[in-house]
């Protein structure tokens, strides 16, 4: 639906930074300050326009997408159309992106004396492409915006020079991701009338096809989200890139990856999602633990924070592929919370060079604004009550406590696996928290560097959003909830459609045939009455089943974190 009577608000939000970038490009380089102010003005205007998304948001329990632009055919012969819309998950990512762009432009001021025009241009292009990727409903357009974001982030990161090794990692990651996405596009454009989400999610593809398409797209998005073991490019970027690039890559690129997974992978390939979700949860848990341990071994703040981000992204993936309301809720909060904490810490925290110049345990008598903001940033990242990270991690952990390895197989040693998995999961979370504490003590001495006060002031809006989401999570979860319900409903309807296609037309539910052995048994999710089993299945969908009846062991991880789930 479009509550503005067809006014293309989302198109405007995407177009404003592009227009700003075009003006910056053609402005004379001598006008350095004018140029920077113009870029900040454009980015701020975009932020204020994006506020209309919140102001005009219609509380809708069905989770229908809102502010819909299109679909308008672009290349009909290839099934590509311009179709923008947002749901309760993406609206927050859009808001975060538009909020961050002007702050980063202001923060980049001292770093971009010689590259002012290029910095402004690429920041605006990156913002526009991120907004496009977050709002588009067409897979081809998503690929367009996503790849543009990757390329512009690469060029932004290299403005102040980029070592060949780091560049090679980035380029290799970009190449693999691009090819995987292109393979999906080529196949899907051949078998689907259109490449937008409704066309992709109706009439699920055969199981084998779904499997390889799912893995291709998940890998492409996993690389973009810097999931372990595809995180090397991200670590290198955080070590060597210019400061604005570090913030924007950490927030925008990683968010695009998660958005792609939630928005396109889940509804388009329901059979593959349900089949491979446990494997992905296991891989992500291993990735979480590995990244947390690696973060502990880092000597510089940017590297440690980069590994912490990798761990957090793995945690978000666990929530996404838990395929549960709480898990997806938590993942969404985590994506937003992680982005906010990372932006605060990167804006105020020391860079690689600064930390090398300042002794780790030197005296720092200045109780300045930078120190305070750094402390608040770390506390937020540590998920103290009152921060968005707290809501994210507690929701996600609680959601995961309902998750079982083999829910409908009584013979399987599920308890052992559950315990092992919980142990690994809790280990990853604990080590992540430890890493943050260690990083804080090491980075504190360099917070009194010149310009920290100004940077600290810039983070105030981010801190306010963190606090708002932590204290009043219902503001956000009321928007997220229906979308998550709808998403899981789409997965379920995909499974049901597949089941109907397999079943003979006249058969009764009791005579429903079992699928061939080489295909996933989707019937396990669906009892005879056609609704998912609420108590034991991995997918607990649709309906107000927020009442949590978990055994004692599910309290362990929250307790270890110092979090009270009640």
């Amino acid at each position, binding site marked *: 639906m479009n509550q503005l009577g067809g006014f293309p608000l989302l198109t405007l939000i995407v177009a404003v930074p592009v227009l700003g970038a075009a003006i910056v490009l053609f402005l004379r380089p001598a006008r350095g300050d004018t140029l920077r102010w113009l870029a900040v003005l454009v980015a701020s205007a975009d932020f204020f326009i994006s506020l209309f998304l919140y102001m005009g948001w219609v509380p809708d329990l069905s989770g229908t997408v809102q502010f819909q632009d299109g679909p308008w055919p672009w290349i009909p012969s*290839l099934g590509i159309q311009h179709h923008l819309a947002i749901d309760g998950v993406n609206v927050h990512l859009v808001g975060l992106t538009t909020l961050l762009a002007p702050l980063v432009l202001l923060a980049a001021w001292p770093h971009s004396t010689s590259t002012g025009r290029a910095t402004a241009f690429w920041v605006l292009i990156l913002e526009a492409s991120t907004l496009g990727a977050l709002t588009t409903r067409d897979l*081809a357009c998503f690929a*367009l915006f996503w790849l543009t974001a990757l390329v512009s982030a*690469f060029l932004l990161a290299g403005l102040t020079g980029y070592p060949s090794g780091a*560049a090679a990692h980035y380029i290799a990651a970009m*190449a693999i991701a*691009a*090819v995987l996405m292109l393979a999906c596009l*080529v196949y899907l454009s051949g078998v689907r009338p259109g490449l937008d989400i409704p066309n992709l999610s109706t009439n699920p593809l055969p199981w084998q096809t779904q499997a390889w398409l799912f893995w291709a797209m998940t890998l492409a998005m996993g690389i973009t989200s810097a999931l372990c073991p595809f995180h090397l490019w991200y670590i290198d970027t955080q070590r060597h890139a210019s400061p604005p690039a570090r913030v924007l890559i950490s927030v925008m690129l990683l968010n695009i990856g998660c958005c792609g997974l939630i928005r396109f992978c889940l509804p388009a390939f329901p059979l593959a999602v349900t089949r491979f979700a446990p494997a992905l949860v296991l891989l992500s848990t291993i990735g979480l633990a590995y990244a947390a341990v690696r973060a502990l071994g880092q000597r510089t703040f940017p590297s440690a924070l980069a590994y912490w981000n990798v761990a957090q992204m793995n945690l978000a993936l666990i929530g996404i592929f838990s395929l549960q309301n709480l898990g997806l809720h938590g993942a969404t909060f985590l994506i937003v919370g992680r982005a906010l904490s990372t932006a605060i810490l990167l804006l105020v925290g020391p860079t690689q060079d600064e930390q090398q110049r300042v002794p780790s345990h030197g005296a720092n008598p200045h109780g300045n604004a930078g120190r305070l903001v750094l402390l608040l940033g770390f506390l937020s990242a540590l998920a103290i009550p009152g921060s968005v990270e707290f809501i994210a991690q507690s929701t996600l952990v609680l959601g995961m406590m309902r998750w079982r390895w083999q829910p409908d197989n009584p013979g399987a040693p599920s308890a052992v696996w559950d315990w092992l998995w919980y142990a690994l999961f809790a280990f990853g979370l604990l080590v992540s928290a430890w890493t943050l504490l260690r990083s804080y003590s090491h980075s504190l001495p360099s917070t009194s560097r010149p310009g920290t006060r100004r940077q600290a002031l810039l983070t105030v809006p981010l801190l306010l959003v963190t606090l708002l989401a932590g204290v009043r999570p219902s503001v956000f979860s009321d928007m997220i909830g229906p979308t998550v319900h709808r998403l899981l409903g789409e997965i379920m309807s995909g499974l049901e459609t597949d089941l109907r296609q397999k079943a003979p037309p006249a058969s009764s539910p009791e005579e429903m045939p079992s699928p061939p052995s080489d295909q996933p048994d989707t019937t396990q999710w669906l009892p005879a009455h056609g609704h998912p089993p609420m108590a034991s299945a991995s997918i607990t969908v649709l309906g107000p089943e927020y009442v949590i009846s978990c055994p004692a062991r599910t309290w362990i991880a929250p307790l270890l974190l110092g979090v009270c789930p009640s």
Partner: protein
Amino acid sequence: MPGAHLDCAAPLGGVSIVTARLSALAQPASVPLLALLACAVCVLLLDLGRAPRRLMAALSLTGLIIAAAMAVIVVTSGQGGSIQGIMSLDGSSALFVLFFCGVGAACLLTEQGMPAALGMRDASGYALLLLAASGSTIVAQSNHWMPTIIGMAVLHVSLAALIGSQSAWLYVLVQGLSQALTLFGAVLLYGATGTMQTGGLLDVLARSVPQGTANSLAVLGTGLVIAGVCTSMVIAPFHIWLRRACRHAWVPAGPMLSLALPATAVAALAHVRHTWTAASDLLALLGSMSVILGYVDALRSRSLPGALAGVTIAQSGCLLLAWVAAPDSGWVPPFYLMGSSGLAIVSLWALAASVQSEANREPAVDDLAGLGQRRPWLGAAATLSLLSIAALPPLAGSIALLAFLRSAAAAYSGAVGMVLAGVGVAWLLTGRWTWTMWMRPPTDRQWARTTPELLLLAVLSAGGLVLAGICAEMLMRWIAGLSAIV
């Protein structure tokens, strides 16, 4: 020899047919060819009178523009058609003529943008350029083996003279072999079908050979033609010569070598792809192999023209696969691909011409270091061209790739997979060059002045890639409408 009794006089009188029917050339369908030849003659006459070089360049450019415009006008006004059964001007051949004239114009602009010391040594070069375009036009319009082979010969001789002494011998040697293979294959096909006409080759084969049996003579003939044409088209494994030829070639002739040659070969190959049922599979395999090998070659190369040779090989592979898959999806994807790769490669050759500052020094990829700081517009144009090759939407290269791979995916899934792997290597190439241009500090070497002509060519080509991508649907419809005119 089955079917040999059908038209025994045809092969013996092949040349005489062409000479005896010269009077038939005075038809609307032959106007593009005549315009090119007339301009070439005028340029030669002006050269005798020591006219200014700029005038000859302008005259050549005018000839190319007239030929292209006339081809489209004649076809759209319905005045095209057959020239005594050996040549014709239909929608497809008009698109080819448009492409060849565009490539010729790009060569002219590149030459005009080079420093005087690196420009054309002899004004007759303009005539050679027009002759090369004429040769390609003859092949595109031919319906008969003789004009096809004559057109190829005109193109090769002109190009050999254009690219310069150091690599001309290699070029002549390779293309001589290619011509011999093509001619011998055509003779064998004549033996199998009894006709030198290429239009109805499939029908004749179907009539003369019982259903389901293989005609060994036709298979051998087709195989030889494919080998010969693939050599011209720089398709793997017949591609090794191009790198050396490009490295030593005169840079302004580069677009002709990279674009006109493969496109002309494709036009020739279109005659035989139905005469052997396994030919399509073989061609798809060769095309996809070329994509990977070409991009790997480009990635490894330190020489700029050498890398462009690799890109040419890869793009030729894509073009071949698009052509093979065309009957399932119409002729739009191959023509669109031809245009998009043409724009990208022209832009990259303009970059190579800008970097070259000395006559005997080969431009290297390392010379691009710091280009983004020194020549931002040129760097941006080159980056866009590379990104188009790497299929970044919405640049024309990505739309072309999506269009032809989509149609080829069902029948040639293995080949499509190999092309996608090749695109991955293209991303690596793009990343490497982009990093060199924008992130490496500038080298100390003296840069040649980037002339307005080269900058215009590079920026126009890159802008064309963006526009062609955004307006892809409109362009595709126009191509579909024009190519449907028979």
